[in-house]
């Protein structure tokens, strides 16, 4: 455990000296917290006029019927709008750590610091867990902070009925369980890519593709093709948890010190 902590502190000391990384880690969650609040402000200013929302497709009507039980039309649109941001809060813990994790192994290769590191008595699992946690934890904490900022803003701008929706178990499950599980999946994938890639840019670009499935979900819901409810989130959580276990095992097994040191220049 001490070695894992040592790896984490070193990674943070190194990564957050890069002001751009620090900026992105802070800015993206802040943006995701402020954007829905800003939209609610605009919405309230416009008087909750649904006609401006272009929400007259058949799919959206069905979606609203499921989503808006016991809510007014205005509240329903607010809940729908905010529900899109639930995915954004799931994307943050995936988007931020992938580039950090993608650089973490291949970056050490390029700076020639990997060989002395692997010569120390650190186990592969300790090294990878340290690097994964170092990439994940700031993003998860930043997401949670952003969610609390979002909650505070929402509290003052929506009715109690709508506010209860953003404290729904589905939201809590998505942000506090599924988000971190997705982050782990993304980080494991990035670490695997990083240990196999030959240069940092390739690793970062490949890792960025991990966000695609989540973006597709956002688009799917915003167009009304899919409705994400508590059951769907739970199902996603279970699937991601299983994938996490598989990915952790694969990532550790694919991290072959010899291959990494000898097959790469």
């Amino acid at each position, binding site marked *: 455990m*001490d*070695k894992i902590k*040592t790896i984490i502190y*070193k990674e943070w*000391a*190194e990564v957050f*000296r*890069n002001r751009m990384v620090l900026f992105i880690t802070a800015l993206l969650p802040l943006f995701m917290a402020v954007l829905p609040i800003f939209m609610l402000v605009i919405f309230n200013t416009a008087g909750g006029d649904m006609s401006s929302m272009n929400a007259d497709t058949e799919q959206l009507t069905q979606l609203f019927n499921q989503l808006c039980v016991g809510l007014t039309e205005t509240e329903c649109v607010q809940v729908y709008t905010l529900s899109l941001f639930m995915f954004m809060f799931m994307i943050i813990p995936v988007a931020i750590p992938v580039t950090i994790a993608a650089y973490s192994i291949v970056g*050490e290769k390029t*700076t*020639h*610091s*990997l*060989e*002395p*590191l*692997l*010569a*120390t*008595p*650190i*186990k592969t699992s300790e090294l990878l867990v340290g690097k994964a946690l170092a990439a994940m934890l700031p993003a998860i904490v930043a997401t949670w902070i952003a969610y609390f900022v979002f909650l505070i803003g929402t509290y003052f701008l929506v009715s109690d009925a709508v506010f209860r929706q953003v404290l729904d178990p589905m939201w809590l499950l998505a942000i506090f369980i599924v988000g971190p599980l997705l982050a782990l999946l993304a980080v494991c994938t990035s670490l695997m890519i990083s240990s196999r890639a030959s240069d940092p840019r390739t690793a970062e670009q490949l890792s960025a593709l991990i966000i695609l499935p989540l973006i597709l979900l956002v688009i799917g819901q915003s167009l009304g093709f899919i409705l994400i409810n508590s059951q769907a989130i739970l199902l996603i959580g279970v699937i991601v948890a299983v994938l996490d276990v598989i990915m952790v095992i694969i990532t550790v097994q694919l991290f072959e*010190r*010899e291959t990494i*040191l*000898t*097959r790469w*220049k």
Partner: protein
Amino acid sequence: MISMKGLNKRFGDYTAVDNLTLNINAGEVFGFLGPNGAGKTTTVRMLTCLIEPSAGQASVLGYQVGREDQQIRRRVGLLTETPGHYDRLSAWQNLTFYARLYEVDQVDKQVEKYLRMLDLWDRRQDPAGSFSKGMRQKLAIARALLHEPQVLFLDEPTSGLDPEAARLIRDFIEELKGEGRTIFICTHNLDEADRLCDRVAVFKQRLRVVDAPANLRRQVYGRRITIQLAQNAADFKDAVMAVQGIREIEINDHILAFNTENPEIENSKIVRRLVQAGADIQFVNEVKHTLEEVYLNLIAEEAPSGEAVSKAEMSAASDG
């Protein structure tokens, strides 16, 4: 201390290290010499448990490579050929990180000790990225020593350094030698090997020869004596040839050169004969061949293998 028996490393069809059998004693400074791509770094990587041997056995400090890797890693220090640091972190942070990974008892004390010893104390808070190559090398040596390893592997410790920095590193290695550590040095710098090493091995995929530098000179060149005369040396060639055990006589104006196994005995006989023959002797010298000459002689004997080697395989083996 370090033992290799039939050690072999293949990358696909390419054999980087072939059937290496070698023993290195405790407290010995051992030079591992060979051209680029000879397999030196590959050997060091096997002995430091970074890569696995394809065949054969090796042990370091009595621990088996491949079976007791963690035990070995705890007890050896490694200076890699291209020592990388965390450039955004200070020298202090770099060393503290490694001291913790090596589970050093008194981290701050050890870090301070080596920063002071290698003259980096005043720059301890500066990012490693701002260091000169010499300072980076010193920092890497400090890193390799933090956990007080009994065995130290130094891969090209003075490569690419200016003469002053190289000398500082060499002096430091001599200090370490005085502490009784076993030091395994891969180097191209044959003068360095000559000065520092108790024994050297010439290696190119397989072991060519291993011995003390002085013995190697003797093996390759024998002991060559030159005698400078006031007269033309050709006039006295017969006098020298009459002495038993004298070989490879060469005449060059006033210089008479020859090989002998035992100059301590033969020289006096030759000098006596020359004086009897009327020669005026000005100087008697033993030719000191450099280790570089010995090395080049040994390496030149070996033609490279004609086997086709894939790019990936060469890449895998090319740094050593």
